[in-house]
């Protein structure tokens, strides 16, 4: 009985031993392809993350550049608007009228026309009179007129006196160029 009792544990231990096996280095080396994959995946993921970061930085830079350009465009638009406002004011009839008045301009109420086709003068040449022909001070409201003409020069009339009577002036000797009978119109309005 005791022999059986003695042997029985040894029988029981035998399979346990059989289960033990040495861990060889060869086996761990066999796992290295998996490690390689893991390493590659890790490097890949890191690469993607870095690429993403670079891309993000580049995009951010482009966005800043875009914002800067938009700001520049806004500034230029404002500049353009300021200049347009000034041009509008200076070219408004109100400013021109006031400037003409300051310069002592007089509109001649007796216009004379030359018909080049018929070689004929229409109207009686008369010097402009400083009576009702003088350009009047502006009377028409304009609340957006922000700029006015400054530093207007001495009236032309003072610089060079107008001829006393235009009609007595000698005819021009230069040849008259025909304009097909049409009275040339001033390019201004």
């Amino acid at each position, binding site marked *: 009985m005791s022999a059986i009792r003695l042997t029985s544990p040894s029988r029981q231990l035998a399979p346990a031993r059989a289960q033990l096996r040495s861990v060889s280095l060869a086996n761990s080396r066999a796992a290295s392809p998996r490690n390689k994959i893991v390493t590659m995946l890790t490097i890949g993921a890191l690469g993607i993350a870095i690429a993403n970061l670079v891309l993000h930085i580049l995009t951010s830079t482009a966005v800043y550049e875009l914002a800067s350009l938009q700001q520049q465009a806004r500034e230029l638009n404002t500049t353009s608007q300021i200049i347009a406002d000034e041009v509008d004011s200076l070219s408004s009839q109100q400013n021109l009228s006031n400037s003409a008045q300051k310069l002592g301009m007089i509109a001649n109420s*007796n216009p004379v026309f030359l018909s080049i086709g018929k070689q004929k003068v229409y109207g009686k040449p008369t010097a402009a009179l400083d009576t009702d022909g003088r350009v009047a001070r502006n009377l028409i409201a304009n609340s957006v007129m922000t700029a006015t003409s400054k530093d207007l020069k001495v009236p032309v009339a003072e610089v060079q006196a107008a001829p006393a009577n235009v009609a007595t002036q000698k005819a021009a000797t230069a040849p008259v160029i025909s304009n097909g009978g049409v009275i040339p119109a001033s390019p201004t309005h």
Partner: protein
Amino acid sequence: MTYLTPGDPSKRLKKIVGFILVLVGVFAIRLIDLQVIEADAINAKSYEKRAVTRVVPAVRGEILDVNGKVLAKTILRYDINAAPSKVGPVARKVSGQTVSIQVEQVAAEIAAILEITPQEVMQKIIGTGEYSQIKKRVNAAQYRKLVALNVPWLYYDPMAERVYPNGAVAGNILGFITQSGLMEGIEQEYDKCLAGVDGEESFEKGKDGIKIPSSVVTTRQAVAGKNVRLTIDSDLQYFAQQVMASTVSFLRADWGTATIIEVKTGRILAAAEAPSVDPNDPGKLSADDRRARIFQAAFEPGSTLKTITAATVVDTGMGSPTLKVYAPSAFLIPNSNGYRVTDSHAHGLEKLTMTGVLAESSNTGILNVGKVVDWKTRYDYLEKFGLGKRTALNFPGEGSGLLNSKDTWSNDGVKRYVSMFGQGVSVTPIQSAMMYQTIGNGGVRLNPILVDGCESNVNDFKNAPVKPGVQVISKGTSAQTLSMLERVVEAGPIGRYGAIPGYRIGAKTGTAQIRDENTGKYAGPYAISYFGIAPIDDPQYVVAVTAFKSRTVGSSLGVAKPFKRIMQQVLRAYRVPPSTTKTSDLPLNW
């Protein structure tokens, strides 16, 4: 006692792996559900939460004069706002050192730029609120100066605003747009053309509410408004307005108008009024003075209608410019319970021709001229000349004037007579001007033209086509009427003040009594008019000048000189050479 047994590790591993697989499976299913099945709905919900949609206003088109000069356009203005709760000293670098600028000084700097007092600025920026408006709609130059101050508690809202660079030039025609959207004039009439179609864009905002850059998506492109070109010559308009402003001031009149029409086309070259509204600041004038009276105000024309009576007599063959009539000191209207018509001055019995009647502007004389034509025929002529009906312009609020029905006339003997010298009927200044256009245009009444069209590209504008007119009187009658009008300028006691040396001018004066709406009686001050056509040998322009309720000059003499100045400018501006033909020299007396 229970012992934990190590069991089979591989089995346990399998169980764990199985569990993980199941978990992954569940996640995968949920992922597919979220990413594929419900993806669109979730995306939409998410976008709704972070996306903002806003309207992109279409840029309103411009209004141009006939030469392309801009009379109305849309630009950016800036509302200047502050956050009072954040108001404090402003750090600024001065000579390389950072110094703190006190709020009072900053307020003074802001006030100087905005042209208001520092106290006004201080009132607006003191408080605990997050929003306070300091000034609305400042211009770009002021905005830039404010930005340069670098005040952290100021912020700016750009706003589109309509501006009229020439101020009150053609202001009454252009109309205006208030901030509440109220419109008048051309702005109202051509709103559909000018307005364009608003666009729409959406963008995404972050958690802090700030727009995410590059997230803007235009969902609907804004379509800019088209431009409108008027027939108005703004330089001529300005000149006429200047003349009328000084005239109204001198006459101490309620208002004045000057209308310039191109005879052969009906184009309105100027429609000047005084007072004239500056559409940039319409609140400065009363609602009545903001109106376009040339199209909207109807009043009894007075003697300028005598021309129509004379033309009717000539056209019906019942008389000629040399028709001999008596002009007594008073004329008793038959069957009128003693309604007596007199002239403006006492005189004895005068022997005048029809031409003389016009030159003298005799009321009693014109009654003897006009009565040779039956009243129904005269009524028809008045209708054909355009009385009692709005013109084809269809200007907002345009008046039709008043021409009572034939039934009314049949029961009103006085009206039938007094209409011969412009009482009992009313006309707008544009109707009056078009009557004279008819006489100048060989008897053909055209539709007045104020707008050439509506185009996207300003280079595409062409003159509006001239529609065939109505032959009101014959060409011969037109010529004879012009000859009579010429004699008014040559020999008329007032008419001669409108004469322009070198040019053959025809005109008619008018001094109309104004009916008091309360008493129904006629009284002064008068509506004085001077309507003229030039040159008579080839009529090209009509200038019609009126001053309503002239207080310093009680006759049309008050507008003869303004007519002359404006007509001179028209002839000069449009290069009309002086006349070379001679006057008809029709007799005035017999």
